[in-house]
């Protein structure tokens, strides 16, 4: 396999800093390959259903969906002093991007009273306004957003599945895409529950993006194996070389964006970045273990029956 892949550029030896390793797939049976991702999926589903039974929701709901108020305050007061400055106990006080900036979250939706309390009880930092930003969502509005978001996710998933079936027109390869995409969504959701990241508009956008992104590598793999001539393992390796490069590039970009946005206190970008990072990692596993084992079964055994 270490032949010349680079055609016209061959004079320059192929010496990448990171290269996609060739996995010796023929050492593992289909069952062995599929077991790992399926076990992870089962654990993730268990986490979500357990959380549903205990807390009433599979994932913690953020302010966008549960209602509440979030203030960004600029003050010389400490986090403890900020907590004490309000009649209502804040849900959380976290440092934001800038110096002396804090994000304070409340379950209460009385944004006017919270703003007044902040302005009268917190020490001003220089000339800056104390309340830098305020955002408040009523519980009923959040309820509506929840339904809308769920509907959006379902439509997106069904649409994606329909495209998968249209593209390959055979059951096993198409369902392989749908199952790995499903797992790509469920694993980050379980991750959110375990780490305590609340579901927000940003994470929903991340999940939708994930449906689009994660399917790319599955389509690439199916395409190489089913629509190209050549040895199964050689096609697999070629698809992996491209697909892993794609996914790893996106993962690194999303990680950098997530961490930078988190440090700067930009929630929306931070949650999109983290969710995509986790989801794409799950996608690596699902594509090259679950999807691949289904394809191999289909190619060597399923196609004959």
């Amino acid at each position, binding site marked *: 396999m270490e032949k010349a892949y680079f055609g016209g550029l061959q004079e320059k030896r192929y010496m990448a*800093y990171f290269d996609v390793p060739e996995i010796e797939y023929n050492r593992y049976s289909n069952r062995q390959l599929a077991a790992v991702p399926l076990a992870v999926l089962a654990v993730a589903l268990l986490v979500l259903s357990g959380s549903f039974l205990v807390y009433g929701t599979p994932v913690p709901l953020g302010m966008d969906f549960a209602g509440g108020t979030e203030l960004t305050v600029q003050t010389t007061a400490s986090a403890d002093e900020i907590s004490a400055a309000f009649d209502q106990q804040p849900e959380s006080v976290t440092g934001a991007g800038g110096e002396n900036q804090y994000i304070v979250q409340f379950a209460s939706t009385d944004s006017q009273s919270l703003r007044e309390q902040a302005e009268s009880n917190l020490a001003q930092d220089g000339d800056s306004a104390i309340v830098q930003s305020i*955002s408040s969502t009523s519980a009923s509005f959040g309820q509506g957003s929840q339904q809308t978001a769920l509907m959006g996710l379902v439509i997106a998933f069904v649409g994606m599945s329909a495209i998968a079936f249209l593209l390959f027109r055979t059951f096993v390869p198409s369902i392989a895409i749908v199952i790995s995409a499903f797992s790509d969504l469920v694993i980050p959701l379980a991750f959110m529950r375990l780490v305590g990241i609340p579901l927000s508009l940003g994470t929903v956008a991340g999940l939708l993006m994930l449906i689009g992104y994660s399917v790319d590598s599955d389509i690439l793999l199916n395409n190489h194996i089913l629509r190209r001539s050549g040895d199964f393992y050689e096609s697999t390796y070629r698809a992996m070389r*491209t697909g892993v*490069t794609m996914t790893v590039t996106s993962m690194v970009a999303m990680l950098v964006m997530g961490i930078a946005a988190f440090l700067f206190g930009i929630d929306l970008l931070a949650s999109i970045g983290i969710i995509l990072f986790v989801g794409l990692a799950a996608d690596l596993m699902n594509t090259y273990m679950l999807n691949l084992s289904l394809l191999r079964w289909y190619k060597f055994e399923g196609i004959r029956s």
Partner: protein
Amino acid sequence: MNPISAVKSNWRVLLLVAFVGFAVVALFIPGGIVADNSVAGNESLQDNPTNLEFGLGLEGGTRLRAPVTGMTAEGIAPDAVSDDGQVDQNRIDELEATLRGDGAEQLGLEPANASVHVQDDGTVVAEVFTDDVSDAEFAAALQSADADVSEDDIRDGVSQRTRDQIIETIQTKINAAGLSGGTVYEQTTPNGDHYIVVEVPNMGSDELRTILSERGVVEVVAYYPTESGNQTNETVLTGDDIASVDPPRQEESRPGQASQGYVVPVQVSEEAAPGFQQQMNEQGFTDPNEGMGRCSLDTTNGTVDFDHENEQYCLVTVTDGEAVAAHSMGPSLAETMRSQEWANDPIFQMGAQNQQDAQSLSVNLKAGSLRAPLDFGESQVYSIEAAHADQFKQYSLLIGLLSVLTVSGVVYARYTDTRVALPMIVTALAEVVVLLGFAALIRMPLDLSHVAGFIAVVGTGVDDLVIIADEVMDEGDVSSERVFQSRFRKAFWVIGAAAATTVVALSPLAVLSLGDLRGFAIITILGVFIGVLITRPAYGDILRRLLTDR
């Protein structure tokens, strides 16, 4: 090679260059491609080195979403409209009376809080704009006027006409408050709830809320003694009777009298003027020996204090049920009214305590009253200081650059050949430039969610370029044009399929009104299209030049 064939074989690259050039003009040349720069002179625009426009999250301001308070019964009186569309106005009035009247079963609502009208499709709609009435009471009141309605027919919310009127009024109000760039629109959720959305740059949430929570129902009430000597109130002018409004000004002080504050000069409509004139004469306001100039009511804390000893002849300005100013009839106005000449040129001054009140009175008169109040209990508010928003702008630029650098680093690490990696990065950036140019061209206000979209576009863009590069360079030499074309086409199948799934996955967000995410979805989808149609074919051409022996 002659020039024509050179253009022919490189047209994809040339197309990309043209698009980038176009985008750069749209981005950086003031006025750019949009010749009619309608917002020229706006200061925030001049500070901006590009033609990009920024939304609330990156510019500062407030957005408020709230539903309208009220409930509605539709199709209640088929008998009021005949088959040929003739409306029986008496029947409509009768229905309206049952909502306003004080009788048993009737609701006794203020005129502003109840409405019955005929919709375009000929159905009759009754609405009440308050939370104080239950579904059952509303239905019972309508039934008492023989309307065809039961409690189950009552739904929350108001009619389309009412929402349209509210949007128009709020738009006038925020324009009149001297705020440029404010927008008001309606948003409908998939489960049929309607929200009024108000977006105003450079305004705090409490300020906007004050403007919106004022209903702005203005009346002029005559306060005078009847023949029995008791003081009485009578509404003599309502907001509807005012034809035009001048800006507020300080009242000219009259000889022997201290200035009484501010006034808003208004012109009374032709229909209302003679009636008003007659009422003033009959009630004794214009008689120099009776009511002229005889008003000495004081105001405390912004409301008129009705505690007094002498007889009073006052014209009281009432806003949202609160008496905010009381003025007497001046001698010159009284004279023209007495001589019946006033109605020919019906100019009149409404009083206010201070400049701020006068300003808000003027706005309320111009905009008319809010047809129904907004329900702030169900609202969503987002407000951000300009300074903080500016911080976000810098941070998101930084995050964008960091992401691009990271992607470039990974791509270089993977290929270690600048001939492959560099065009890849440049092409992906070109895609972002074209998108930015497009955003500047259509004046799309950019927000944080759009920034996320741009980063996603770089991500999907590079992914697709990786597919093209790997496919084309696969399996040995790309010696001939034909080999290249066939491999490129194969790569394009995967790219097209991947693009289709991304578009399908994000299109619900572009259509559904899910808060701030619309921008993210729109930018990402646009990016996918620009990528598939323009930048990726161009990258193929670049790669071909580098790889084939031409």
